[in-house]
């Protein structure tokens, strides 16, 4: 008997990769999240060259390639919703079940955009450039969800 006739095929094999990780916060995100966890306060850093204030804090200003370490600046937990999306699309492994809204918030006193969830508002009432404010989590863990979400400013 010779080679099999190609009347059938074995199509594919199914496997899964599972790789746990542990991601380091570093100096600035550690301090940032200590403040959100212990004091419900947001802090940014100021570029030593262009003077722009960055939240979340970054150890280097990407535009200037300059350090930011000299100043640690309190910023508001209110701001302007720059843009947003309502997510209806689900996919395996998604951390939050759709539908949900999230967007980019320009916090008062900062020069960049901070991404977070939007809550306490009907989806069709969300508008670009609306004022929003942080709703703090009563059970903070030192991560992004120390803020539950941003809601329309009262």
């Amino acid at each position: 008997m010779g080679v099999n006739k190609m009347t059938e095929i074995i199509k594919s094999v199914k496997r899964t990769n599972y790789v746990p990780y542990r991601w380091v916060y570093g100096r600035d995100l550690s301090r940032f999240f200590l403040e959100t966890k212990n004091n419900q306060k947001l802090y940014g850093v100021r570029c030593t060259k262009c003077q722009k204030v960055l939240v979340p804090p970054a150890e280097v200003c990407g535009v200037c390639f300059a350090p930011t370490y000299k100043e640690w600046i309190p910023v508001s937990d209110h701001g302007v919703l720059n843009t947003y999306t309502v997510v209806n699309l689900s996919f395996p492994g998604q951390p939050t079940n759709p539908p949900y809204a999230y967007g980019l918030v320009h916090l008062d006193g900062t020069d960049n955009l901070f991404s977070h969830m939007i809550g306490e508002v009907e989806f069709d009432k969300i508008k670009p450039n609306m004022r929003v404010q942080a709703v703090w989590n009563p059970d903070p863990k030192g991560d992004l969800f120390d803020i539950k979400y941003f809601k329309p400013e009262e």
Partner: protein
Amino acid sequence: MGRRVAVVGVGMTENKSHWDCSMPALYRLAVTRALADCGLTHKDIQAVSFGQSPEYFEGINHPEKWLAEACGGYLKPVFRIHTGGTVGGSAAIGGYYLVASGMFDVVLAVSGNKLNETASAQIGLGTVYDPIIGRQFNTGAPSAVALQSLRYMSKYGYNEDYGIRAAVQNRQNAMNNPYAQLKIPGYNFEMAKSTPMLCYPLRLADMCPTSDAACAMIFVAEDRVRKITDRPAWVRGTAATAAGVYYADRDWAVPIELRKAAEIAYKQAGIKDPLKELDVVELYNAFSWQELVWYEGIGLCDWGEGGKLFDKGITAMTGSLPSNPSGGTLCANSIGAAAMFRKAEAALQVMGKAGARQVQGAKLSLGHGWGGAIQFHTIMVFGSEK
């Protein structure tokens, strides 16, 4: 700019679910088609510029070790390049650099992915976000581009229909492209607008399909070109730019990274008015609104004028500067090959080998690549003349 370099051969696979074709076979198919296109053999190839997107897509790390031989790279230098969605563009530019530098005379660039081998490409795309800040609520690529699209709409006052119309124009163009995946006879505005809203303001129609594909290009030094082909695509300009995600004053509707790349490439090519001088462009429009945003990025019009340019019909197949005769990334997206398809399509146009999607008399073309959140861009400008 180094030595003068031309593309002499292009090889494409169809964009689809290649269930009967392994990853090595897919790469080999693109490479053999590129070699056949210019009458070379794998022995003529001196080095390989290899591209593939995040390993998460197929779950196979370090793919170049698995695929070097399938690309004809046995006992040759094989360099892997990886820049996300731009990888096909970066691999093409890497191949060009290797020849322009004088180190090699004949270099193969090849890039691809098989997105249908993962349960969802969005799982892999979700992992490109910052793990500490941002990954918590993303939805792969669509949610990031939804933010970009809504910012563009609200900043300049465009309604939802502009995205839909851009999608329809590309889908109609794709009917002429044997390598495109989304080819829907009679596709029209009503069909597109009735598709479900997946990530506001993006409907299903505003999004690209999930493809398996590979694309290959052969770059050759000036003094070798005429012996190989009388229809080369000369590389006239090349640029790649990068930026971060959270930098100060970033506006998602204003891709300054792309404008920078365009300015560099136009200077090299001697282009002063791209809208008048270019004959055809291929833009990495994975999502409909990007068609308009990238018009502005490559300087065809001022910021905010992309929709108005579209209104004039200039970028339709019947216009003076057709955009995406292939149907673009909106109709075929393997990610790994998509940015190289843009370069290869642009090259085919000035070679006069684009078949039913040929823009008649095209002499100067541009191929674009996009990747990252919105911040990686590649551009190659090709000319039928040196």
